[in-house]
């Protein structure tokens, strides 16, 4: 893509379509929102609402299964930061934040935005903004690994 040497607009759009169809299958098939943070909390018994336990478990188990199939056939790149403690801190904040805010990029970002939910629009704008601010602060302070 001109001007953006690392961008994968085509793969991104095709993968996005797959994600959207997957969420549509969950909604039209089971009548449920494909929100990963909610499913995850449900599996752990940390959510009072949400889908039946088995539905959450099968959906969540499918995520690494699907990624594994793609990785085995065409290969997948994933560069994680080297600091495992930084990863743990980020995971903890994401865990609290997604529960408090009732969703993440799948629930609010994909399922909510497509429904023009005012709550999801507000949530998505907020986490996009704090995400940009966080990465910018990390880059300017030299913490970015």
């Amino acid at each position, binding site marked *: 893509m001109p001007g953006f040497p690392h961008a*994968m607009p085509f793969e991104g759009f095709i993968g*996005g379509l797959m994600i959207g169809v997957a969420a549509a299958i969950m909604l039209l098939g089971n*009548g449920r929102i494909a929100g990963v943070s909610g499913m995850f909390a449900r599996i752990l018994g940390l959510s009072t609402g949400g889908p039946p336990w088995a539905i959450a478990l099968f959906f969540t188990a499918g995520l690494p299964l699907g990624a594994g199939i793609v990785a085995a056939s065409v290969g997948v790149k994933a560069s994680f930061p080297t600091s*495992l403690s930084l990863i743990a801190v*980020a995971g903890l904040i994401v865990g609290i934040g997604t529960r408090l805010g009732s969703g993440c990029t799948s629930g609010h970002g994909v*399922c909510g935005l497509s429904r023009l939910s005012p709550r999801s629009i507000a949530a*998505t704008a*907020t986490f996009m903004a704090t995400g940009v601010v966080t990465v910018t602060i990390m880059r300017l302070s030299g913490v970015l690994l």
Partner: protein
Amino acid sequence: MRQNLISLASGTLFGAGLAVSGMIDPARVRAFLDVTDAWDPTLAFVMAGAILPMAIAWFVVRRRSTPIAAEQFHTPATSPIDRRLIGGAALFGIGWGIVGLCPGPAIAALAIQPLPALIFIAAMALGAAVHRFAFTSRRSA
């Protein structure tokens, strides 16, 4: 049984989509949030691709009384935009920005980079537990 198979099919396609789109790579996600360096707009194309079929699905939902394999649609009730929503989303964005991982790609990445993915997921579980016991016990919700 039919519901579980639908769920597995949805999750598998979702995970495959995350892999195809490059969203399992935390560096790529962070490059979208990194507007001061070499910005990578890929995530915007992923969102556009994902929202399109879901917008059609919501259109279909309005014309159907029940889902294919369940008795009713469980769609989120309309609640106000409150401090919890904004505070939680703000917190989530900070954690998302630190590493470039959100819950879906983190779980999908178990098949690609098991150790860092597992550490992120374990910490996420701890965070969900902290929320469950620190934020929901004081209020009845």
